[in-house]
């Protein structure tokens, strides 16, 4: 597994490098740019509002100026009407006088609130009002004199220059008022101009801020894109590393599998050679034991003849050797050699099974188990045993191997029943994680837990040795199950029963020939 580890480390490093899009200075520039833009926008709005207010004020000042001029003009028009009437004596000339005297109080009233805020202007207006009133009184008195026919009195009043002085005072005061108002208007426009210049400055600053912001953002995007690219490149490297690792892993698996196959084949060859080479001397031992037996029989016959001819000719020792020792020795030799022969035969059979070519075919396991059960039906009836076969998943496998596995297990179940208890053997199956799992359950004598692994070893048996056997069956079953790519387990409680669980690869869509690899030796 250590080969896998570098790849995740690469990925972590690649992720880490993507964090810093902007440097601290970059972030500061971004913040400054944003603050400047906000200030520029805010003050531009404020300046615009102020200018609008200033323009309104300037417009009002202009109205005041007009009003002042109108006031001056009205006074002059009143005087013009008086002069005309005095010269002609016709009432028609009095018309401008009347209109002006009617307008003048309204104009003064209009000026009152405008000058309220300005003390100097108020003072001027205060000076103006009595002068105008005096002027109008003087005019009205002269007109009244004229109307009453007292022309001399009227002219005398004019001649006092009272009206002339009043008119000059009115002109002087209104000029000063107008000058004040003009100065105010000029100041307003000056302020507006100043604010306009500030606005231009602000807008320039705003533009600069925008340019700065755009620069910062563009720089950030470039850095971000570069970081993204770098991350992507590193990820690609990491991916390639992973792929390389996968390839390495696959190669390791392939190498190990090949090693295992080779080791397995070597064991098979070893078993085959050992069993053959052990067989050769054994054949000699058995052959010459037979020769010995034949010779011993001849000797025995000769001894018997001698004994019947001349009793007592043979010593007791010779008689015992011929009658008992030699036959007994030969019996033991033969028993041992035939046992050895069977054991070697079992090894040979196992190695032959390992060398046999497996041919996959579709197997209806219910039918397969049914026909195996039929072959042991007689045994089952004798031992009062019921065999129950449930629903079983199908397999695609070598028929003979599968039959041998389940034949051995069923045979065992029937062989190791608990005496005096009617037997029940149950066969069930299911598919679990790509494996078909078969359970062969019996209520037989069971296997002590310490023997659960041992029973699968060659020549090893468990429990009461009342049933003959060589300890080969389960070893053979395990070898077969392994060769088919599966495994076998045993669950058992002594005196209660045993479950053998066989896991075999469930069929895939296309049957493979991967198990027929050790075809020839």
């Amino acid at each position, binding site marked *: 597994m250590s080969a896998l580890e570098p790849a995740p480390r690469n990925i972590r490093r690649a992720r880490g490098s993507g964090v810093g899009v902007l440097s601290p200075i970059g972030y500061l520039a971004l913040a400054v740019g944003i603050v400047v833009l906000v200030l520029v926008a805010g003050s531009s709005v404020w300046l615009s509002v102020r200018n609008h207010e200033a323009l309104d004020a300037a417009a009002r000042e202009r109205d005041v100026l007009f009003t002042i001029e109108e006031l001056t003009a009205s006074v002059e028009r009143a005087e013009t009407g008086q002069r005309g009437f005095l010269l002609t004596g016709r009432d028609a000339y009095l018309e401008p006088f009347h209109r002006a005297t009617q307008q003048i109080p309204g104009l003064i009233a209009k000026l009152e609130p405008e000058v309220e805020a300005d003390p100097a202007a108020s003072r001027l207006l205060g000076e103006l009002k009595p002068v105008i009133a005096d002027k109008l009184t003087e005019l009205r008195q002269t007109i009244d004199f004229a109307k009453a026919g007292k022309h001399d009195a009227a002219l005398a009043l004019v001649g006092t220059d009272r009206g002339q002085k009043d008119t000059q005072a009115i002109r002087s005061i209104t000029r000063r008022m107008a000058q004040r108002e003009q100065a105010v208007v000029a100041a307003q426009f000056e302020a507006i101009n100043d604010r306009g210049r500030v606005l231009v400055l602000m807008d320039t600053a705003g533009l600069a801020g925008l340019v700065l912001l755009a620069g910062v953002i563009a720089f950030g995007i470039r850095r971000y894109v570069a970081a993204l690219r770098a991350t992507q490149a590193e990820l690609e490297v990491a991916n390639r590393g992973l792929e390389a690792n996968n390839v390495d892993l696959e190669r390791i698996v392939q190498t190990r599998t090949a090693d295992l196959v080779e080791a397995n084949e070597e064991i098979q060859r070893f078993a085959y050679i050992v069993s053959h080479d052990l*067989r*050769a001397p054994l*054949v000699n031992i058995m*052959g*010459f034991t*037979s*020769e010995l037996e034949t010779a011993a029989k001849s000797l025995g016959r000769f001894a018997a003849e001698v004994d019947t001819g001349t009793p007592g000719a043979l010593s007791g020792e010779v008689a015992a050797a011929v009658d008992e020792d030699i036959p007994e020795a030969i019996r033991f030799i033969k028993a041992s050699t035939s046992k050895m022969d069977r054991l070697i035969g079992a090894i040979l059979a196992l190695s032959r099974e390992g060398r046999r070519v497996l041919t996959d075919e579709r197997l209806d396991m219910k039918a397969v188990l049914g026909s195996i059960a039929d072959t042991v039906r007689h045994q089952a009836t004798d031992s009062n045993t019921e065999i129950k076969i449930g629903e079983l998943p199908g397999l695609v496998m070598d028929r003979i191997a599968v039959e041998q596995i389940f034949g051995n297990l069923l045979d065992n179940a029937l062989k190791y029943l608990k005496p005096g208890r009617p037997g029940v053997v149950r066969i069930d199956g299911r598919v679990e994680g790509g494996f078909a799992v078969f359970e062969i359950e019996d209520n037989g004598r069971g296997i002590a837990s310490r023997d659960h692994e041992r029973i699968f070893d060659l020549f090893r048996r468990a429990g009461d040795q009342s049933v003959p056997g060589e300890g080969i069956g389960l070893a053979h079953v395990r070898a077969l199950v392994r060769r088919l790519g599966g495994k076998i387990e045993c669950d058992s409680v002594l005196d209660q029963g045993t479950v053998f669980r066989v896991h075999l690869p469930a069929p895939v869509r296309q049957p493979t020939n991967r198990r027929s690899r050790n075809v020839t030796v």
Partner: protein
Amino acid sequence: MNGVPVTILLIEDDPGHARLIEKNVRRAGVSNQIVHFMDGTSALKHIFGQESGTGSAAHAPLLVLLDLNLPDMTGLDILARIKSDEHLKRTPVIVLTTTDDRLEIQKCYDLGCNVYITKPVDYEGFATAIRQLGLFLSVMQVPEPT
């Protein structure tokens, strides 16, 4: 067997097997001379006789009982030598060996082996096979050497 007695050449590295084969062949009533060799080199020397100088055996009619697993060479070499020799190619060769590999058997017949017998690895089978071989030898005809 017409006049000249056939010599049985037994090439077998296991002396016990050789002895058991000989005994059982004799029991079947075959009384021909049996010459036993335990390795390939000495057997070839005897058959082709160049170095040994005992050329007399070279042209006597032969029957060869051949084990394939020999210490110094494989029996296939001996078989090939015999079957490619102008004078000896009709000599019957009975391969008697433990190997039951299909390809090996084919190879032997391709090289001209007359009979291929697998030595049963269990004793009973072995004894039976040898007895039957003895009976077979007692009736078979061997051509004169040319």
